């Protein structure tokens, strides 16, 4: 079944193109300072713990190789996963897009007779807009990850994969807790301060009530092992563990690319993921479950396998490497663009460099055409990626598609075509250089050009440009060197 890419969720409808969306964050100096501090801290921690492993590069190669194998044989591993999950007492559902996944989850929740679910932090359910969909049909979803709770209470959007409330400072969080927690359940104490310990305690009390009453939980998955049917969630707070063990029904929504062949492959990923993500050797809580177990944990387990544009992505030989992503967010933390703009500018649940290559592929490049250009191609993301996704390579690849979408007659395409003609001819290039030197003479004051017109004004607003010299290198060479040589 082919679905309309725009109906796949992923992007926030109505979001402006990246350059415009970035303006808000760029103008907010406090936000930029917060982002710089937060990403800088985690960046240093990651480098320190990665340096502890002398086989770090080999681990990255292994992870890339495993993910490459999975993408090449995805059909095989998914069927194997379905068989092993079913054999272990779980039920597997297949969802081709967001709408189908939401429908499946809704029916499963309704079958339990419940109207509330607790949620483990999950990118896949955000991608499909599950909470909003459930709300429309009268089911309340409670986010239990602390940062996701902050986002939910603020009716806000996540701005980072790992720390979705990175754009909020603790005073803003305190105000939000005091104003909003009471509407969702246990209220925050009125004299709550912005001390992180007090904030955590207020969240703990608020969430404990949910954990003890919830009958249904919804989660995502970091990994699912094809040959054993084991599903894994990696987290820091233990709130995920509560959701995964206390309720009677567990529904996991997982992108199809999260399957890995064998249990042993986890050896590679569990060394890479915590180090790349939080900069820790190991994360505090790693929960694994295999189907259902009598008298232990949920009685019913449902695994919803989500496509939502992934098969389309898989069809692109260069672009498919984006499916190797393990959502560690190392690329966000090292990205000089993300550090300045924050996550909201990307207009998607997947921000930062990985978002710039994943979002356009999931929804179609024409629906997110500014994202592949939201990068200087500095390469910091590629160096940091634990599964070696060559993000700059995918970016330039997607730029070709974005340009093709605009047509060969756009002003930019025509200018590029003209430039290509000049640049493929030493004679025309020399003529252009003479013209530039003349033009520079007209425009320049004391050898420097100030303001430039049209689309170049963004450049010349903050930079002087040296006037092109009277003599190009090739002219100098002709005059000074060429005649000396036979």
């Amino acid at each position: 079944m082919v679905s309309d890419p725009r109906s796949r969720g992923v992007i926030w409808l109505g979001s402006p193109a990246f350059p415009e969306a970035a303006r808000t964050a760029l103008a907010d100096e406090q936000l930029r300072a917060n982002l710089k501090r937060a990403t800088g801290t985690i960046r240093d921690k990651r480098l320190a713990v990665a340096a502890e492993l002398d086989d770090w590069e080999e681990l990255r190669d292994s992870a890339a190789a495993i993910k490459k194998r999975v993408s090449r044989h995805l059909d095989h591993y998914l069927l194997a996963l379905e068989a092993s999950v079913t054999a272990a007492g779980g039920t597997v559902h297949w969802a081709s897009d967001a709408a189908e996944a939401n429908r499946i989850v809704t029916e499963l929740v309704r079958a339990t007779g419940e109207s509330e679910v607790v949620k483990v932090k999950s990118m896949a359910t955000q991608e499909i807009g599950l909470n909003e969909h459930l709300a429309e049909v009268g089911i309340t979803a409670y986010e239990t990850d602390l940062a996701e709770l902050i986002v939910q209470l603020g009716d806000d959007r996540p701005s980072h994969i790992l720390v979705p409330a990175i754009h909020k400072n603790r005073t803003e969080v305190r105000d939000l807790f005091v104003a909003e927690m009471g509407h969702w359940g246990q209220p925050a104490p009125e004299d709550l301060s912005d001390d992180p310990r007090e904030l955590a305690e207020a969240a703990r009390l608020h969430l404990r009530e949910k954990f003890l009453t919830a009958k249904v939980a919804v989660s995502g998955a970091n990994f699912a092992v094809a040959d054993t049917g084991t599903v894994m969630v990696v987290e820091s707070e233990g709130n995920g563990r509560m959701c995964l063990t206390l309720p009677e029904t567990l529904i996991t929504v997982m992108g199809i690319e999260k399957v890995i062949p064998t249990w042993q492959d986890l050896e590679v990923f569990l060394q890479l993921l915590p180090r790349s993500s939080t900069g820790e050797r190991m994360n505090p809580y790693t929960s694994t479950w295999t189907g259902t177990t009598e008298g232990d944990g949920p009685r019913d387990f449902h695994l919803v396998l989500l496509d939502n544009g992934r098969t389309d992505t898989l069809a692109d030989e260069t672009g498919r490497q984006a499916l190797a992503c393990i959502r560690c967010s190392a690329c966000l933390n090292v990205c000089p663009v993300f550090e300045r703009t924050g996550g909201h500018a990307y207009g998607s649940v997947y921000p930062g460099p990985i978002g710039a290559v994943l979002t356009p592929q999931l929804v179609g490049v024409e629906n997110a055409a500014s994202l592949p250009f939201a990068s200087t191609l500095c390469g910091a993301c590629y160096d940091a990626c634990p599964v070696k996704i060559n993000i700059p390579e995918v970016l330039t690849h997607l730029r070709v598609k974005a340009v093709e979408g605009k047509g060969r007659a756009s002003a930019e395409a025509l200018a590029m075509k003209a430039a290509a003609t000049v640049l493929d001819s030493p004679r025309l290039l020399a003529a252009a250089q003479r013209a530039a030197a003349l033009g520079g003479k007209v425009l320049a004051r004391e050898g420097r050009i100030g303001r430039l017109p049209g689309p170049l004004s963004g450049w010349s607003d903050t930079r002087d440009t040296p006037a092109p010299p009277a003599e190009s290198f090739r002219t100098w060479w002709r005059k000074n060197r060429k005649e000396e040589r036979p």
Partner: protein
Amino acid sequence: MRVALFITCFNDTLFPGSGRAVVSVLERLGHTVDFPTEQTCCGQMHFNTGYRRDAAPLVTRFARTFAEYDAVVTPSASCAGMVRENHPLLAEQYGDTALQRQVDELMPRVHEFTEFLTDVLGVTDVGAHFPRRVAYHPTCHSLRGLRLGDRPQRLLSAVDGLELVDLPSADSCCGFGGTFAVKNADTSNVMLADKTAAVRASGAEVLCAADNSCLLHIGGGLSRQGDRVRSMHLAEILASTEGEPW
């Protein structure tokens, strides 16, 4: 050894001095440099902006122009990176097997200027004299593309009279990114402001790099901000001598 200079269209037009500096250093070291005039551009702007097809003829031209040389030297890390990384890709996508073979054979002979000096010629002291406080900005293509490592610093440290000072957050992108500086001008400006602040904090009198494109951006910002730090290509520092200061 037949050495050819690949000046790059950008330097040819805007920074001919950097090309003259490369020629000057190599001649001082006893080499003859040729400048095949059929050369033009590596196609980086087209490739990085999404116009790969327009870049394809430039790959053919580059391979043809430089086929006969033992070494092709260029004072641009990003153009060297473009040629070595992406010309094989473009040859595969748009060319025939003859072009692919020609490109593959040529690639190992294409060198960025500091690579050529340190790795091919085995030189770190080029006999330069430059009595200034200098900061080196490792451009992204130098650092993460070509992995130049400390080659530029080794060359600079050997320059007589030169004091190499640390540039804070040196490995952070300056925000140029080719057409990024135009398409995402606001983000680029903020990144530029952080970089010029770092240059000021370094106390340098001169900022150098292995690429004039980033220097155009950073230097343009410094100039607009009324700062007197001079930006110049590393080759010009290496060309400078006591008798003939650059």
